[in-house]
């Protein structure tokens, strides 16, 4: 992408994204070692080339004051910066300093707004007239719907039918914000089908429509661009950690599905070699795959996946031996995806990021633990990071930052049902909620 080379001739700006070496990776060509690329139908190539050019100009070079406006809206509309809070009782429990990066306090209740607001604003700067997006848990869909309403852009959200049934409050939130929600009925009706369907819409409407992809997945420039919008998490957390504790953390922990909160939480720490980075994936019910049924009852593509090409990028995937994509599973629909961002796949191969799988049971325990010890009800996605803390705290250093990627209000129905289905030792008495279910 030679178009983006112009940035080196301009003065860096305070609001522009960081230029530390780890942050430069992939910006020019979308390649992270062997991963990344632009594996898309020809009809979409001009659109992603146009987007790569706009990313270089508006995001990296702050042309027309794009990044200034983005940062201002993140503060005024989004409520940034979010706090870095010491978790007193968890610190005591694990005999280590545990700090929580409170992305659950961002407007909308999850980190997703960082990216959605950035992309919808970018679409406006590019002169696009319509927004489309896919959503799994509904968190990216609701964030995109909020951003589209805020910036007065018409918006259509594709969502798997099964996810619609799992996440009804989020569907209502999107509609309240004026977005159209289109159910996707193919396959098992989850995130990967919704992504395919959104790409089909885009192939017909590229000229006036921007596709707000919800994670660090897809063809270049989406993985680097989404990372740069989400990196505000680690830019803040790194400064806050130094300010509050006098130094860098020893460990940074984030849950990983597609990987946007993960990479957002890691990005500014990648060059800090003393900081261990832990990507916590959904181990689902088991890491074994059922090849005959085409089902992987987990979403641990970093931990258990194989290299392949899906949705525009070469990355690690849950696939069968022929290369057909598996149906993934997780108790949290936001992690339920058979692929992962190519940058994370690269960082795992390089040994910079450690992938860990936490199963559904441990995630449920993590959900209840953060709720009843710290007074914070986390999203089921986020709960995996706390499952990790319980299982692996002895391997961690003395100062741990955990990203609380989202709040759990959206998951209360699922939490009642999932808690009822298993023996969760630290759950409250659920009988009054589950009788008659």
């Amino acid at each position, binding site marked *: 992408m030679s178009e983006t080379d112009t940035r080196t001739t301009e003065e860096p700006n305070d609001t522009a994204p960081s230029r530390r070496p780890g942050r430069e990776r992939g910006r020019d060509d979308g390649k992270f070692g062997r991963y990344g690329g632009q594996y898309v*139908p*020809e009809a979409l190539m*001009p659109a992603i080339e146009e987007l790569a050019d706009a990313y270089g100009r508006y995001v990296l070079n702050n042309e027309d004051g794009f990044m200034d406006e983005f940062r201002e809206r993140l503060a005024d509309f989004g409520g940034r910066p979010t706090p870095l809070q010491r978790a007193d009782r968890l610190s005591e429990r694990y005999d280590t300093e545990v700090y929580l990066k409170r992305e659950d306090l961002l407007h909308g209740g999850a980190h997703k707004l960082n990216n959605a607001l950035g992309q919808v604003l970018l679409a406006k700067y590019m002169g696009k007239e319509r927004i489309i997006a896919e959503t799994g848990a509904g968190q990216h869909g609701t964030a995109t719907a909020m951003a589209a309403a805020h910036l007065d852009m018409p918006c259509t959200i594709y969502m798997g039918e099964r996810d619609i049934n799992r996440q009804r409050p989020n569907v209502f939130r999107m509609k309240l914000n004026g977005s159209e929600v289109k159910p996707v009925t193919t396959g098992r009706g989850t995130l990967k089908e919704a992504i395919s369907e959104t790409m089909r819409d885009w192939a017909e409407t590229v000229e006036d429509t921007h596709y707000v992809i919800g994670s660090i997945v897809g063809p270049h420039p989406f993985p680097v661009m989404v990372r740069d919008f989400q990196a505000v998490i680690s830019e803040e957390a790194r400064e806050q950690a130094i300010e509050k504790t006098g130094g860098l953390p020893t460990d940074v922990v984030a849950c990983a599905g597609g990987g946007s909160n993960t990479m957002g939480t890691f990005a500014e720490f990648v060059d800090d070699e003393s900081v261990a980075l832990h990507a916590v994936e959904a181990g689902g019910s088991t890491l074994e795959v059922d090849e005959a049924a085409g089902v992987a009852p987990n979403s641990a593509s970093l931990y258990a996946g194989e290299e392949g090409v899906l949705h*525009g990028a070469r990355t690690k*995937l849950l696939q069968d031996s*022929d290369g057909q994509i598996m149906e993934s599973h997780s108790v949290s629909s936001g992690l339920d995806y058979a692929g992962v961002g190519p940058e994370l796949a690269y960082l795992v191969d390089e040994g910079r990021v450690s992938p860990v799988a936490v199963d559904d049971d441990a995630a449920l325990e993590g959900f209840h633990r953060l709720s009843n010890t710290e007074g914070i009800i986390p999203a089921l996605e986020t709960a995996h990071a706390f499952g990790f803390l319980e299982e692996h705290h002895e391997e961690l250093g003395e100062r741990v930052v955990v990203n609380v990627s989202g709040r759990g209000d959206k998951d209360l129905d699922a939490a009642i049902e999932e808690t009822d289905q298993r023996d969760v030792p630290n759950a409250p008495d659920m009988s009054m909620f589950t009788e008659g279910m």
Partner: protein
Amino acid sequence: MANSEAIAAAFADGPAYVPYLVVGDPDYESSKAYVEALDRGGADVIELGLPFSEPIAEGSTIQEALVRSLDAGMTPTRFFEFAEELDVDAALVCMTYYNLIYQYGEGEGPRPFVERAAAAGIQGLVVPDLPAEEADPLREACDEFGLDLVFIVAPTTRGDRLDRMMENVSGYVYVQARLGTTGARDDVSDQTTESLDRLREYDVPKAVGFGISTGEHAERIVAGGADGIIVGSALVDVVAEGVAEDLSTDEVADRLEALSRELKEGARRGYRSRTEAVESA
């Protein structure tokens, strides 16, 4: 350039009729009868769809056919057996997504797939999610085993991208008649004429696809300068009707053969009117 003599021959003598069906839709044996019906109906090249679980370039008609085929047990291994068992005169091209090509066989990269395809009598590949920029390893394997690598040119493909693609293409170019995914339409887009104009200077056969469903469409497109017509969804629709109405394999095969004759005749009429126009000029 051309690697496959059979594909070059298909375009050498009048307009080429290039039908597409999903292999294994709705089952292995019926599908074989359907592909052979296309051949009897005058196919010059047949594009055989090998189903992938995430077909991002397809519209609903072909997507549903891919699901029917996968549900009936189609795999790359079965696909190659299918190609070997076919009794057809037309040249065979495989259309599939890159992950299946990349994962096939032992060892890294696309070479094992191409080697097996060549052994099964496949003469070319169309890979809708593989842009020219990422195609070097596949192109090398295709050159090694004598397969053509066909690229799709969209209405939005222009300038340097078009030049780069034209340097890499072999066999024929797949001219996408309009934006969007596959699917039969009633109109033939102005975007087709524009695309053919842009491609006029390149010396490679131009086959137009996306939305062609009748002999009249075929006639207009060939009269407008196309060297061939690619028809997919209209034929897949016939197979889908057969499933929905529970028709016999013979009945569906007859319909496919009849529609093929209509399309081929339309293409020939378009070719005659074009050559007559040239002669009288």
